[in-house]
């Protein structure tokens, strides 16, 4: 629920370049922790903690028929479930629009950056390909699920190992050493505009006060690969340029957490 008094106060502080928790405007919460291989039942997994925000990401793999338009490429599916575990504001039931947007933006970060070399996931053209299913499950939503979720998805993919496969059936009890075929790493940074100030890594009260946001996905070689503008206020070209610069700059910091 939008809270007018909290929004006014967030803006008042930002005018003086201050934030609710004393951080600088372009400072992430500390420490940013990424723990890979956290879940033994998944082929790949990660737990990401940024401040009080905690997200679990699991990668499951299976063998499926490819999509007709990409007969020689593996399938990718990204899903997010904002269940009532992680916030009093989430309700049970089918994924709401918030879950869908979160999953779609992270999906694009992975897909458009060509992070997964999906042709190498082809087993038999037009018949059998590996399918990679990424699930994002927040444990505590204290803000910035976009960046935490994307970071977790990337770390989980990096940690993934193929299960056993004999040409007929997938053997999940068998863990091979074979890693996913991955290329250059994408990084997602979401920049928020509140009043006329730009901030990164909002806590929940800041997120609720946000006028507009821009999720900036770029790859370690510097190429931009995905953008998503959110929020109801418009952005000027100047805003966009600044937000992209900030996204790229902060991305370098986030990438360090993956090492």
């Amino acid at each position: 629920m939008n809270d007018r008094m909290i929004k006014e106060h967030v803006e008042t502080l930002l005018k003086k370049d201050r934030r609710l928790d004393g951080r600088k405007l372009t400072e992430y919460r500390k420490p940013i922790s990424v723990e890979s291989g956290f879940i033994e039942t998944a082929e790949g997994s990660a737990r990401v903690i940024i401040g009080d925000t905690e997200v679990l990401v699991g990668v499951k793999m299976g063998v499926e028929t490819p999509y007709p338009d990409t007969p020689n490429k593996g399938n990718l599916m990204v899903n997010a479930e904002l269940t009532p575990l992680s916030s009093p504001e989430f309700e049970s039931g089918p994924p709401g629009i918030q879950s869908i947007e979160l999953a779609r933006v992270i999906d694009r970060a992975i897909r458009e950056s060509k992070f997964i070399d999906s042709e190498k996931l082809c087993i038999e053209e037009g018949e059998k390909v590996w399918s990679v299913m990424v699930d994002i499950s927040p444990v505590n939503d204290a803000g910035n699920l976009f960046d935490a979720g994307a970071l977790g998805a990337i770390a989980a993919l990096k940690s993934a190992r193929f299960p056993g496969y004999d040409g007929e059936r997938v053997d999940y009890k068998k863990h091979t050493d074979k890693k996913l075929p991955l290329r250059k790493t994408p990084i997602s940074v979401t920049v928020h505009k509140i009043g006329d100030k730009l901030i990164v890594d909002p806590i929940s009260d800041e997120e609720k006060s946000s006028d507009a946001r821009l999720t900036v996905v770029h790859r370690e070689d510097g190429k931009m690969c995905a953008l998503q503008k959110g929020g109801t206020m418009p952005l000027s070209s100047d805003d966009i340029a600044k937000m992209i610069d900030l996204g790229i700059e902060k991305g370098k910091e986030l990438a360090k957490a993956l090492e």
Partner: protein
Amino acid sequence: MGKLIVKEKEVVVPGEDLAEGMDYLPGDGCYRDKEKVRAGRLGLVKIGGRLIKLLPLSGKYLPKKNDIIIGKVIEIAMMGWRIDTNSAYSAMLPLRDATSEYIARGANLSQYYSIGDYVVAKVTNVTSQNLVDLTMKGPGLFKLKPGRIIKVQPSKVPRIIGKSGSMVGMIKDATNSKIMVGQNGIAWIDASPEMELVVVDAIRMIEKYSHIDGLTDKVKEFLDKAVKKDGK
């Protein structure tokens, strides 16, 4: 003879045996199970003679008559304002108790209190179904100016306020700020940008260390250090 099993200020969990024998009596948060007095919730043991009670360490606010709370206007109705009380129950602020001014029929009610305003109000009545009525008539009841809103653990509010306001008074003086703490666990802070976080941290510290001895000194020490640092 009865036997006491726990000590004063011990943290106990539901079902824990507190005392044996009929000499001890179960107070708030405790119950008798045959010869034993047992814990009926998680809490802090408080022994007063033969009476054992438990002070809550967690839990949602439950509106009680005469409590001073900080609520948020969430709806403007025909007969008054609906106020969120940070509990399972919202409250009604009826027209007649909203202000000492006369409110004419059909007046635009949002000129008094509009959606999203925070108010300091007093609980006048709570029914068996927990329908809650509030009043704004009386000293110290008013609409809050813009400021920082934080949530605190309702059971810790008496500690945050301190004996006749001593604890919160100490924070106000040290940081030169205004602070209101509602019984319902909503606190409002009006401080300089430099001091605001010092106030928040001091309150968080009281919440965390509420049941240790020498809390006042600990908070004072923290304030002295923090104010000196930020004062530069």
